[in-house]
C-alpha cells in the first residue's frame, strides 16, 4: 500500500477531469485536494482542464435542439413496426383460409371431370 506521503508526491493529472466533473469518490477527491494544496504544476493543469471543460460546455450549449415534431416521426415508426407483424398474421390467416377452400374443392372438381 502506498503511503500518504508518496501518494501526495505523485501527480494526479489523469484524475483532474473526473475531479472537475464531480465524479471522483470521496477518498480520491480528498487526495486530489490535498495534492493540489502543495503542487503548483497540478494546479496549473487543473486550470487548463477547466478551460477545456468550459469550452466543451460553451460549444455544446450553442447546438440546436431537435425538431419539435420529432416524436411524431417516432410514433409513426413504432406504429408501422407494431402493425407489420399483425398485418402479416392477418395475411397468413387469409392465405390459410383460401388454401382450405381450394383443397376442399378438389374432390368436387375431380367428380365434375
Amino acid at each position, binding site marked *: 500500500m502506498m503511503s500518504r506521503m508518496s501518494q501526495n508526491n505523485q*501527480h*494526479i*493529472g*489523469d484524475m483532474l*477531469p*473526473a475531479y*472537475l*466533473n*464531480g*465524479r471522483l469518490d470521496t477518498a480520491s477527491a480528498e487526495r486530489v485536494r490535498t495534492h493540489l494544496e502543495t503542487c503548483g*504544476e*497540478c494546479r*496549473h*493543469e487543473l*486550470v*487548463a*482542464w*477547466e*478551460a*477545456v*471543460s*468550459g*469550452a*466543451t*460546455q*460553451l*460549444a*455544446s*450549449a*450553442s*447546438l*440546436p*435542439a*431537435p*425538431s419539435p415534431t*420529432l*416524436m411524431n*416521426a*417516432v*410514433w409513426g*415508426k*413504432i406504429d408501422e*413496426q407494431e402493425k407489420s407483424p399483425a398485418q402479416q398474421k392477418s395475411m397468413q390467416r387469409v392465405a390459410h383460409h383460401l388454401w382450405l377452400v381450394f383443397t376442399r374443392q378438389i374432390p368436387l372438381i375431380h367428380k365434375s371431370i
Partner: protein
Amino acid sequence: MSMGMYAQPAPAVDERQITRRIAAGDREALSELYARYQRALFNYLLQLTPDYGLAEEILQDTLVAVWKSAHRFEGRSSLQTWLIGIARRQAHNTLRQHKLPIAGETEMEGLVATEPEPEAFTLASIARDELAEAFRQLAPLHREALVLIFVHELSYQESATILEVPVGTVKSRICNARRALRALLDAPEEARQ
C-alpha cells in the same frame, strides 16, 4: 445521477419506473423520457455527425429502440448512460449504412500522460470563445469523449461502458483531445478556416 448541463432531478427509482412503464406500452412514459433526455441525446449525436437531419433520424431510431428494449434496463447503469449507449449503437448502424466514417474505428490510442504538460499554461489563457471554436473543429472521436466527461458529467467507468473501451482508453482519449485542441490553436489562422 448527474446530468451535467442538462441537469434535472432524476432519482434512480424514477428511472426504473419510467422504463417499466415504457416496457408496459405506456406511450406517455416514452414522451416523458424524451422530454427529459432529448437535448442530452441530440447534443451527443451531433458530436458524431454534423448532419442535423441524420442526427434527427438517429434520435428517432434511438427512441424506437428504447420502446422495444425498455424491459432490458435493469438499473445497473444510470438511465442516461444506457440511453447514450443505445444512441451510439444506432448512430454507428446508420453511419455504416450511409458509408460515413465512424469515430474511433481507425483510432490509434496513445498512453495516458500523467505529467503536467507545457501547454497547460497557455490553454488557460485563451479566450473561451476561441477555445469553443477550436473544440468544434476537433475530430468526432475527441469531441465525443470530452462531451461525455464535461457535458454529461459521466464517470470514466460510465464513459468506458458507452465507448466500449477500457477506462485507460477514456483517459488517454481526453488527454489526446486536449492535445489536439492545443494543436488547432497553434495552427496558423488560415489553416483553421
